[in-house]
C-alpha cells in the first residue's frame, strides 16, 4: 500500500486502499465520538473531531515553516550557521537584485492592469445582451492551469529567424511583420520578456477581477443609479461618482487578492523561460536555489522573504474584507 504503484490498476487499487484506510480512521473517530454521550462529553467530541486536523497542520505546516525559518540562517549545505548572510545575498547580489526588481514589476503591474480591465469589462458587459457568454469567455483562462496558459502564450510569442521564405508561426511576431517590422526573439530580451510574462497572468486574472466586480456592481442599489440617470449625468461621471465609490472596498479586495497570488507566481516563469534571460522572480528563485542549485540556506531565506512580503498584503486584505462585509 505504501510502495510506488506503477501500473494503472495498481494505482487505482492503491487509491482505493488509501480511501478505505482514511474511511477507517474516520470510522474510529466517529465511533468514539458517538460513545461520548451527554453534554459533559462535548469537549471530548470536539477534541476528537479536531485531532486529525491539528496533527496534520502541526506536522505538515507549522513544523516545516519553523524549520525553514531556522534553516534560512544556515549555509548552502545546511551545516554552518551564517546569521543573516543569506538575506544579505538577496539584497546585494546582482542576480538576486534582478529577481527582486522583476518581482516588483509583477506585483505592481499585474493586480492593477487585471483589475482595471476586469472593472471596465464588468461595466461594459453589464450593458450588453450576451452578458453570460461574454463573461464565460474572459473567465475561461482562470480555469486552466498556469502551465497550459504558459504553453498557449509561448506559442503566441514563438519566433522564427528572419531569413528567406521562413514564415512566422507566432501571432505576435506575424503582426510585427505585417506592420513592417522585424521579428523579435520576444522572450529573450530583458526587461521586455518579464512584461510579456506578466501579460499571461493578467490574461488569467482579469476574469477573476471581472467576476467579483460584476457581482459588486450589480449590488449597487438601483435607486442611486436611477437618480443619477434622471439628473442626466454622463457615463464618465456615473463611472467616477457612482460606480467606483460604490465598489471601492471590493476593488481593494480584488487588488490585494491578485497581489498575493502574483507574489507566489512560479509556474508561468518556469514554463516559459525557466527563469533564464533575467526573468526569475522570488518564488521561482526559491525553487531553483532549493531544488536545483542545492543552496538550501538561500532557498529557505527566499521562502521566508515571500512569507514576510505576503503578510502586510494579507492584513490589508482581511481589513478591507471586513469593511466590505460591514457595509
Amino acid at each position, binding site marked *: 500500500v*505504501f510502495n*510506488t504503484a506503477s501500473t*494503472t490498476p495498481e*494505482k487505482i487499487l*492503491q487509491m482505493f486502499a488509501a*480511501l478505505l484506510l482514511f474511511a477507517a480512521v*474516520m470510522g474510529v473517530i466517529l465511533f468514539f*465520538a458517538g460513545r461520548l454521550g451527554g453534554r459533559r462529553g*462535548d*469537549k471530548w*467530541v*470536539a477534541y476528537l*473531531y*479536531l485531532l*486529525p*486536523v491539528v496533527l*496534520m*497542520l502541526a506536522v*505538515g505546516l*507549522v*513544523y*516545516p*515553516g519553523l*524549520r*525553514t525559518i531556522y534553516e534560512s540562517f544556515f549555509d548552502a549545505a545546511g551545516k554552518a550557521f551564517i546569521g543573516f548572510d543569506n538575506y544579505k545575498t538577496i539584497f546585494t547580489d546582482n542576480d538576486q537584485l534582478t529577481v527582486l526588481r522583476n518581482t516588483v514589476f509583477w506585483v505592481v503591474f499585474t493586480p492593477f492592469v487585471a483589475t482595471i*480591465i476586469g472593472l471596465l*469589462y464588468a461595466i*461594459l*458587459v*453589464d*450593458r*450588453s*445582451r450576451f452578458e453570460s457568454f*461574454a463573461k464565460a469567455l474572459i*473567465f*475561461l483562462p482562470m480555469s*486552466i*492551469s*498556469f502551465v*497550459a496558459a504558459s*504553453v*498557449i502564450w*509561448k*506559442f503566441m510569442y514563438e519566433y522564427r529567424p528572419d531569413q528567406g521564405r521562413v514564415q512566422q*508561426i507566432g*501571432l505576435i511576431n506575424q503582426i510585427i511583420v505585417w506592420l513592417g517590422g522585424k521579428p523579435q526573439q520576444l522572450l529573450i530580451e530583458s526587461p521586455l520578456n518579464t512584461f510579456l510574462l506578466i501579460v499571461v497572468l493578467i490574461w488569467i486574472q*482579469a476574469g*477573476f477581477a471581472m467576476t467579483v466586480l460584476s*457581482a459588486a456592481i*450589480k*449590488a449597487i442599489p438601483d435607486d442611486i443609479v436611477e437618480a443619477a440617470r434622471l439628473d442626466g449625468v454622463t457615463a464618465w461621471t456615473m463611472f467616477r461618482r457612482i460606480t467606483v465609490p460604490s465598489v471601492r472596498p471590493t476593488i481593494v479586495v480584488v487588488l490585494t487578492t491578485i497581489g498575493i497570488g502574483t507574489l507566489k507566481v*512560479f509556474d508561468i516563469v*518556469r514554463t516559459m523561460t525557466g527563469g533564464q534571460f533575467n526573468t526569475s522572480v522570488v518564488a521561482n528563485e526559491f*525553487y531553483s536555489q532549493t531544488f536545483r542549485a542545492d543552496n538550501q540556506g538561500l532557498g529557505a531565506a*527566499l521562502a521566508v522573504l515571500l*512569507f514576510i512580503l*505576503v503578510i502586510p498584503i*494579507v492584513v490589508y*486584505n*482581511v481589513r478591507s474584507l471586513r469593511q466590505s462585509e460591514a457595509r
Partner: protein
Amino acid sequence: MTTAVPLPAATVEAATSKVKAAEIAKKKLSSPWASLAVIIISVLWTIPTFGLLVSSFRPERQIKTTGWWTFFSDPTVTLDNYRSVFGAEGGVNMAKFFVNSLVICIPSVLIPLSLAALAAYAFAWINFPGKNVLFLAIFAVQIVPIQVTLLPLLKLFVDWDLSGTFWTLWLAHSTFALPLAIYLLHNFMREVPASLIEAARVDGAGHVSIFFHVMLPLLTPALAAFGIFQFLWVWNDLLVALVFAGGGDEVAPITLALANLSGTRGTAWHLLSAGAFVSIVVPVTVFLLLQRYFVRGLMAGSVKG
C-alpha cells in the same frame, strides 16, 4: 492563502433578487458601442487559446512552417497530434499522466473535505476550552505560503519512506487545503439556525448524528463549491507535483508532464498543442458544467497557496 471571500455569495444573492429591475435598466442602457467593446475584448482574450486549438488539429509539418491563421485558406485537419500524445510517439503518453492526475485528485479532495467538515462542526457548534485560540491559530496559518513548507516536508517524507509515492501528494495537498476549508465551512455552518441544533439535541441526538443528519444535508452547496475548487487547484498544480513527484514519471500528474514536455521539446508544437488541450479538457468541462459552484468556490479560495 488568506481569508475567504464570503462577500460575493451575499452580493450574488442580492443581485438575483433584483433581476427584474436590473433587466429593465439593462434594456435602457444597452448601447452598441458597449457591445462592440465587449466583442473586441473577448476576441482578444480568446485568440491565444483558439490559435493553439486550431494548431492541435493541423499536420506537424504545417504547424512548423506556417502560421495557424493560414488554416482558413488551407484547411487540413488531422488527429495525428492527439494520437502522438497518447503514446504513438516515443516517450510521451498523456494517458498515463491523465490517470495519475485523477488518482492524485480524488483523495486530495475527499480527505481534506471530510476532515475539515468535522473540524468546522466542532468550532461552530461545540463549546470546549481553548476553542478561540485554536480557531485563531488555524485562521492564521492560512497565510503561510506553501513554499515555506516544501523542503522540510520532503525530508519528512523521505524519512517515512514515502518519497516517490502518491502518499506524498495526497498528504501534502490535504494538509495545505485544511485551513481554508475549515474556515469556509465554519462560516457556512454558523449560519445554520441554533434552534435546529438545539431541537435535535433535545430529541437526544448526539454530535455524530447531528453532524450527519442535520448539518451535512444543509452543507452540500458549500461542500460542492470547495470540492470543485480544491479539485481544480490540485489538477492544475505544478509546484507541489514538481517537488514531491518530480523524480520520475510514476506518479507525475498531467500538468507536470506538460511542463516537462515544454521544457525538453519546446518547439514540438504538434505535441505541445495537443498535450495542452488534453490537460485542460477536465478543468474546462468542470467549468462549463458547474459554472455556478465553480465561480463561488474560486472566489472563496482564489488566494490559496
